[in-house]
C-alpha cells in the first residue's frame, strides 16, 4: 500500500494552502452545501455564473485532506469555464473515481492536474471524500436548495 499514491505532493500542498478558500465571491448567484454524514465533513461551494460561464468560485467548510484538496483543485480548474465544460469535467472525474480497474490513459490525460485525485481509488472508504465537492458543485449549478449528501 503506497500512501504516496493517495497523499501526493499536490494533494498535500492544496490541503496546506487551499486555493479559493474560504471564499464567497462578490455577486455569488449559485451556492450549495454538501455534507458527508459518515465523517461530519461539510463544504459549501459558491459561484458567480454569468452568461453560462463560471466567472468566479470559492468554497468554505471543513474536511479532510482529500476533500479539501479536491475542492481546491476543482475551483482552480473551473474558473472561466462554461457550465457545459464543468458538467463534462464532473462526469469524467465521477466516472473515473467510481469505475473499477485502472483508469484509461486518455482519461487520466484529459484530467490534467486533477488526475492526482485518482489515487483515492485504492481507498474505497475515501472516494466520497474526493467526490463531495464535485457533487456540491453540481447542486450549486442546478441551484438545488436541499443540502446534498454523499449517501
Amino acid at each position: 500500500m503506497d500512501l504516496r499514491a493517495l497523499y501526493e505532493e499536490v494533494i498535500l500542498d492544496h490541503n496546506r494552502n487551499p486555493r479559493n478558500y474560504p471564499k464567497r465571491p462578490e455577486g455569488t448567484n449559485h451556492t450549495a452545501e454538501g455534507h458527508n454524514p459518515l465523517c461530519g465533513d461539510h463544504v459549501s461551494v459558491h459561484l458567480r455564473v454569468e452568461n453560462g460561464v463560471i466567472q468566479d468560485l470559492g468554497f468554505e467548510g471543513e474536511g479532510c485532506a482529500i476533500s479539501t484538496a479536491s475542492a481546491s483543485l476543482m475551483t482552480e480548474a473551473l474558473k472561466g469555464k462554461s457550465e457545459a465544460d464543468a458538467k463534462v469535467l464532473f462526469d469524467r472525474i465521477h466516472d473515473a473515481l467510481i469505475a473499477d480497474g485502472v483508469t484509461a490513459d486518455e482519461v487520466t490525460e484529459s484530467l490534467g492536474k486533477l488526475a492526482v485525485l485518482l489515487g483515492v481509488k485504492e481507498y474505497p472508504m475515501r472516494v466520497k471524500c474526493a467526490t463531495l465537492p464535485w457533487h456540491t458543485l453540481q447542486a450549486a449549478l442546478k441551484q438545488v436548495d436541499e443540502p446534498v449528501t454523499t449517501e
Partner: protein
Amino acid sequence: MSKAETTALEHGRNLFDVYEVRKDFPVLHQTVNGHPLVYLDNGATSQKPRAVIDTVSHYYETYNANIHRGVHFLSENATREYEAARDTAQRFINAADRRETIFVRGTTEGINLVAQAYGRPRLKPGDEIILSTMEHHSNIVPWQMVCQQTGAKLKVVPVTDEGEFDFEAYLRLLGPKTRIVATVHLSNSLGTINPVKKIVEAARQHGAVTLLDGAQAVPHVAVDVQDIGVDFYAFSGHKVFGPTGIGILYGRQELLDAMEPYQGGGDMIRTVSFEETTYNDLPYKFEAGTPNIVGAIGLAAALDYVSNLGIDAISAYEDDVVAYATDKVADIPGVRIIGTAPEKSGIISFLMDGVHPHDIGTVLDSQGVAIRAGHHCTMPLMKRFGVAATSRASFALYNTKEEADILVAAIWMVKEMFKR
C-alpha cells in the same frame, strides 16, 4: 503510587498474561498492509476468542434447533444451552433473578424497548427525560421519538471541559417532572466512567426510573446492577467479545411485569385467539419470535471467558496499558486528547493540529493500526467540543504496550507527512 496500589497492580499482572490471552484470538495474528495488525477499534467492536468461535461452530455442527417447542433431542439441547446462557448473563451483571435478563439484539434494541414499552404508555406532556451530552445516538434518538409521541421533553446534563458528567448541573435538572434518567456508563467517545451509583441514587430520590447504556462499560469494568441500583441496564454482546446481533436488557422485575410487550409474535404468548391473547411470563414476554439462539450461547461463552480471566484483573491490566499510551500520545506536539476525566477507561480520543481524523485513520491503517475516525455516533458531544470528528484508539484486554508504541510511532508519521 502507594504500596497497596503497587501490590494490587502486581497482583493484576500476575493474574493476567496478555501474551497468553492473545493466543486465544485468532484474528490478531495477521499482517495488514505488510505490518502486524494492531487492533485499536474495540469501541466499535471487539475481536472474538477461540472459545466463542468454537461454541458457535459447535452449536451449528451438533445441536442447531429451534427452542422452547421441539420435543426432540436437538431442540432440548438448544433450549437448555440458551437458557443456561441467560443464567450466565444474569450472574455476570449480578441480576437478582434470571427473569430480569432479556435477550435483545443489542444495546440499541434494549433502549428502544424501554423507551417504547416503559416510556410511551406512561409519559405525559411536560414530563421530563434527563440524558447527558455524551450520549451515543442510540441513547438519544429513542427518547426523542418517545418525546414526539407523548409530548415529554428532553433535559440534557452538560459535560465539563475534561469530559465529565456535570453532576451539580444534573442535580439542578432533577425535579418533580423528571420521569426517566438515561445515561451512559462509560462514554464511547471519551472513555469517561460516569458516577452511575450517585446518578441513580439522585434519580431515585426524585422518583425517576433509570437506564444505563452499558455497551462500553461491560468489557472494561465490573458491573453489578443491584449494587448500582439501576432499573434498566443494556449492553451488546459484540463489544464484550461475543457475537453481533445479541445483547442483554436487564430490567427490575417489578417494572418489567408492569410493562406491556414490545413486540408481538411467537414465544411471547400464552394463548392466542382472535378475541383475546394472553402473554407469556418474563422473560419470554419480551422475546417475540425465534431469538438469536446461537448469539445468546456465544455471548455466554464470551462472558465466561471474561469471568475466567477476571474483570478486575482485566481492568487493572488495561488501565496500565492505556495510561502508558495516553502519556505517549499526549507528549506528541500538536496532539490534544479529548476526554481527560480522572475516572476513565479504554479510550483515547485525540485531535491533531491541521490534520483531519480521517487522514490520520488512513495513514495509521497503512501501518496496520486500526482506529476509528469520525463522530463516533455522538454528534452532540462533538459539537460540545467544537469539532466535527476525533480520532479514537480504543483498547481491549489483548492490547499491549508494544502496540501502544506502534500507535504512537504511526501518529508521529502522520505528523511528519502533514507538516506545514
